[in-house]
């Protein structure tokens, strides 16, 4: 298998773009990992849509308070300066553009910024949660994802094939192979693994990769 970033490493890379003092919502699952890689000296405030600002790490096992949970229904703790609020106020924060960054997972992202991350089609029980609100609320909507599906198929596409979560909402994608901006209806490659040629990356990407300025090496620590 060729070189690719682990989940932790993708999360690490995404964390480097979170500014000091930013208000951030992390989607359930892989995006949650971003919280643990905040660069030293920077303080982000994490929002969970079920009504907490400035929550912290999970408590030790056995010390969970099941009234103090995140959107994934996992137990969390509070940091100094936390606040509780109800769901309408929580989504006022989301929809009203008060979050600086939302980082979400993806089934598919299209070069026009469309995102599909809530439904794999008509079978099974559909569930959407807060994803459709988050993609239209935060000032910056980023995706973290493996570059391809488990079957090796591209997740970055000309157009999404799965039901959409939001239209034209994604502005940056952190993958296991690259960092890509979505701008002007195109994928603009910003960083890629040094061990990977542009052609190899393009071959795993379902839409053309544009280059503006230059492409930096995607460098992350061992994690």
């Amino acid at each position: 298998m060729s070189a690719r970033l682990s989940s932790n490493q993708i999360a690490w890379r995404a964390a480097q773009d979170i500014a000091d003092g930013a208000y951030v919502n992390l989607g359930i699952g892989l995006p949650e990992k971003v919280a643990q890689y905040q660069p030293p000296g920077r303080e982000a405030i994490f929002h969970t849509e079920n009504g907490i600002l400035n929550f912290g790490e999970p408590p030790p096992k056995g010390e969970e308070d099941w009234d103090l949970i995140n959107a994934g229904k996992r137990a969390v703790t509070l940091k100094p300066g936390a606040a509780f609020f109800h769901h309408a106020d929580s989504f006022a924060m989301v929809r009203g553009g008060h979050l600086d960054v939302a980082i979400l997972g993806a089934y598919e992202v299209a070069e026009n910024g469309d995102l599909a991350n809530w439904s794999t089609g008509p079978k099974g029980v559909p569930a959407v949660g807060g994803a459709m609100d988050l993609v239209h609320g935060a000032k910056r909507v980023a995706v973290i994802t493996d570059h391809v599906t488990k079957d090796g198929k591209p997740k970055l596409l000309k157009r999404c094939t799965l039901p959409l979560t939001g239209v034209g909402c994604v502005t940056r994608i952190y993958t296991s192979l690259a960092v890509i901006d979505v701008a002007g209806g195109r994928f603009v490659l910003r960083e890629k693994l040094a061990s990977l040629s542009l052609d190899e990356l393009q071959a795993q990407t379902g839409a053309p990769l544009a280059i503006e300025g230059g492409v930096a090496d995607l460098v992350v620590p061992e994690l």
Partner: protein
Amino acid sequence: MDKRVASLADAVSTIEDGMTVMIGGFGGAGAPIELIHALIDRYRATGHPGGLTVINNNAGNGHVGLAALIEAGMVRKLVCSFPRSADPVVFTELYLGGKIELELVPQGTLAERIRAGGAGIPAFYTPTSFGTDLAKGKPVAEFDGRSYVQERWLKADVALVKAETADTHGNLTFRAAARNFNPLMCMAAAETVVQARRVVEAGAIDPETVVTPGIFVQKVLEVPDPAQEEDLNLAHARYPLGG
């Protein structure tokens, strides 16, 4: 003024067949388990109320609380944002069998529709769900060059709510993230029924810290040691216990 009722049975006595019932909570946090179970008791004793439309963020977990209400066959339709959980088998089987109706609503839209119901706002526009399957059939409009979906208010006949402290006037505080949908549902129901861990005299809650003013609350009952759905599920509980 004293909004206290005498028992769990009294608390849920006005819910009738076919009503719309909002149930507070996000997963287990803030879920009024004892009120839900009292409603199940009534159904088992009398066959009523059935055919309910339930509004909750989720679809229950395991075999207690909302999941048990659904399992008892009392729910015709569920309005929620996320009908998945660690153990969603009750809802999943009924849904896949075509035996329960689902209206799937994005979480923020669900919250805002409930608030709108409480605030006398029959419709509003939101960017959420524009261009997606969940906006199908809904009016859209453009404001300042951006497209929005029109959403309608949600109201209920009864709301079942879990609070931390209530006073006899119905003023409420909540606990941590158990607040979630509870204050909104208090506003949006014709009758709001509250189970609180403590019920105190009017004046015992600082007016500055009241989260839900009593005007939104009709019935209050002290349930001093409420069950937590998460704990019940970790213990593989079922309701009714013999069920």
